[in-house]
């Protein structure tokens, strides 16, 4: 179900992940956009739920997909201190393996979130899973533990009583863990083979739930873009050095989206930063208070930028000018970020209602709806003609039945 011609190359390809894999938070490019076509639009539970299975624990992390395997994290137990990593057969929903570890850090969090809030990341060969307790596990795709870290054991004040949620990213071959909180706040670049620190940089002493974005800067190099209340820091992922700083503040909940060399930052509404190709600088392109996102992160598709606010209103803007073009009211609220595939936006609200918006309609049009009946707070994964979405108790595969 792939487009024959890809307009971009996934950096992950060189590492073992294949085109079509969903390798981290908001996909391989970290912006929620998939090049999949042929996903179901007029959703119908009888026709389009390929499978649904119970999960052994809670969570709101996004599933990942590598080939025919779906990976998802969860946590269980009275104290939510059983950290789980589950591998599922994408074809039939059978569990291939499941691993469970003890939490080493704090498992306190707000009732609405979960210890399995951050999304794992994979290079297609190794899977890196982090939890709100700041415990990090590296496994091969067959479930063999390679190494682990307990970063609250290492740095005892690195914790957040509301829960941590920043997802891992891979940048320049380095595994980046954001452990940003009110007290011992840092981001670390880890050797993905051994888990040891390559660098550890102090970060603003303030709780932060955003996930970094990664900019390709030519000849295979990458720049790490860290978002916080202090704005955006562009950081060399090899050594943690700050290259530039947009210092006008940014949200600590929705994350930025990078597309076409422009970073769309939840800052004073939404602020577009044009990034230099060499990663050394930026300049502000526009700013719009009318495109302010709520909890969900903004999306960019073709020449349009989309944001969902906390009232459930989807706003479409022009990527060139930031001018608001249209608004469409969806049923909210939304805790998870939507995704776009084949010119349709897929959003799952906290009531478990899936809503598909046809972005080719002049002012957007709801083209499909389906009720999953459970609170959904994750951003879905899109891979090989299917969507994967999870609740606190289940995971679904949604696809045209011809997939099976």
């Amino acid at each position, binding site marked *: 179900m792939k487009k024959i011609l890809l307009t971009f190359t996934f950096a992950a390809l060189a590492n073992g992940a294949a085109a079509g894999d969903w390798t981290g938070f908001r996909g391989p490019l970290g912006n929620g956009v998939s090049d999949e076509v042929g996903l179901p639009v007029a959703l119908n539970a009888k026709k389009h739920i390929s499978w649904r299975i119970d999960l052994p624990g809670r969570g709101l992390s996004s599933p990942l997909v590598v080939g025919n395997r779906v990976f998802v994290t969860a946590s269980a137990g009275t104290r939510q201190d059983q950290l789980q990593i589950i591998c599922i057969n994408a074809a039939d929903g059978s569990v291939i*393996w499941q691993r*469970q570890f003890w939490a080493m850090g704090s498992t*306190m969090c707000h009732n609405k979130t979960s210890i399995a809030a951050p999304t794992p990341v994979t290079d297609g060969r190794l899977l890196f899973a982090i939890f709100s307790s700041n415990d990090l*596990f590296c496994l091969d795709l067959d*479930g063999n*533990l390679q190494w682990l870290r307990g970063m609250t*054991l290492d740095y005892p004040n690195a914790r957040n009583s509301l829960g941590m949620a920043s997802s891992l990213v891979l940048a320049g071959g380095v595994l980046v863990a954001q452990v940003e909180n009110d007290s011992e706040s840092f981001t670390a670049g880890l050797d993905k083979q051994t888990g040891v620190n390559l660098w550890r940089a102090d970060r603003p002493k303030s709780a932060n739930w955003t996930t970094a974005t990664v900019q390709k800067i030519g000849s295979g190099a990458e720049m790490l873009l860290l978002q916080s209340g202090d704005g955006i820091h562009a950081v060399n992922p090899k050594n943690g050095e700050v290259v530039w700083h947009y210092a006008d503040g940014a949200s600590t909940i929705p994350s930025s989206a990078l597309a076409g060399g422009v970073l769309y930052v939840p800052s004073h509404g939404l602020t577009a930063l044009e990034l230099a190709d060499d990663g050394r600088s930026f300049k502000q392109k526009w700013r719009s208070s009318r495109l302010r996102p709520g909890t969900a992160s903004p999306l960019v598709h073709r020449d349009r930028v989309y944001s969902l606010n906390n009232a459930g209103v989807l706003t479409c803007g022009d990527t060139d000018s930031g001018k608001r073009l249209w608004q469409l009211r969806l049923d909210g609220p939304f805790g998870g970020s939507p995704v776009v595939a084949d010119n349709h936006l897929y959003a799952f609200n906290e009531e478990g209602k899936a809503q598909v918006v046809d972005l080719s309609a002049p002012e957007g049009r709801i083209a499909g709806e389906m009720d999953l009946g459970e609170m959904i707070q994750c951003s879905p994964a899109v891979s090989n003609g299917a969507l994967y979405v999870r609740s606190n108790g289940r995971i679904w595969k949604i696809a045209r039945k011809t997939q099976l």
Partner: protein
Amino acid sequence: MLGLAPLGQAAADEFDKSVAALRAVGGEGQGNTAAGQALQRLAKGGADTLPALLAGMDGANLFAANYLRGAVEVIAGNTLAKGGELPLVELGEFLLNRSHDAKSRALAFELIARVDAEAAEQLIPGFLGDPSVDLRREAVARLLGQADGLAKVGNKPAAVLLYRQALDAARDLDQIKSISGALRELGRKVNLTLHFGFLVDWQMAGPFHNKDRAGFESVFGPEKNAELSASYDGMDGKVKWQGYSTDDEYGMVDFNKPYGDLKEVTGYAQTEFVSGINRPAELRLGCKNAWKIWLNGELVFGRDEYHRGMRIDQYKLPVQLKKGGNAILIKACQNEQVEDWTVQWQFQLRVCDATGTAIHSATKKNREVAAQ
């Protein structure tokens, strides 16, 4: 030697060496490379190595325990996937030996329950006083179910006695709340303050400043001299220690009560805890303000986080109590936020062992309360 001699001496030595590599893992990923290699070797072992792997967790740090669990999970998963069997008797014997680590025993129980739910069920009543809070929870749940059944059919005396037994063993807040609620419905008194062991009698001094959140790092008078007769330069003049006792069931010590709903302030509270013996213990604190805590003049820990949430046993701080009086000093800082949910300037503290069982200060008052 972890008991693998039947494998042959060389294999047993290799096994021990691999376990040692896992147990050598330290902070910041130290030893991860050697541990990863050792884990691959151990994960190739048969199901008969499971008890020895579990024993390898005894006294190990959490990094090592998780590495060993990685091996246990792979071996158990592969064995069952291939239609093999787990060594139930050996796992059961391991589980029943309370000298082993609580976590590994709970894992042994989980393995048994995975393959023989009936055998696992039969073991549960024996967990009532178990050092493992997870195993103990199973037994309390069983007892609670039985007591509920008796209450439902109107056998009040038997229900009360079972609830009492369950409460005595319970360490998890949700179970304690269920049981105490049921007892109260049956007209019985429950002293949760005593059950948890919250410290309720304090001396307070304040307010000191916390402008720009600088109070957390500032060293005010009580940190230099905590004598009850001392007086200090506070925010609005001289301040002295004043007695404060909380009647909150969960031991909440509220600085707003003596000082009013202040902002950008720091307060201190101190108490004496009398231990009958030298012993390890845990100070368990709940606090949504920035705080520091000292035991006998030594800083135990501090944290500068404000209004991100609070719960019982939020922070578990291992300490060593000395025989006799132990001075506990707490500093709590309130910040500048003005939202409704930032009014609280408070903490709750208890002293307990590693299972969460309350240790009571050996004071005359406590003895009298316990006897009631």
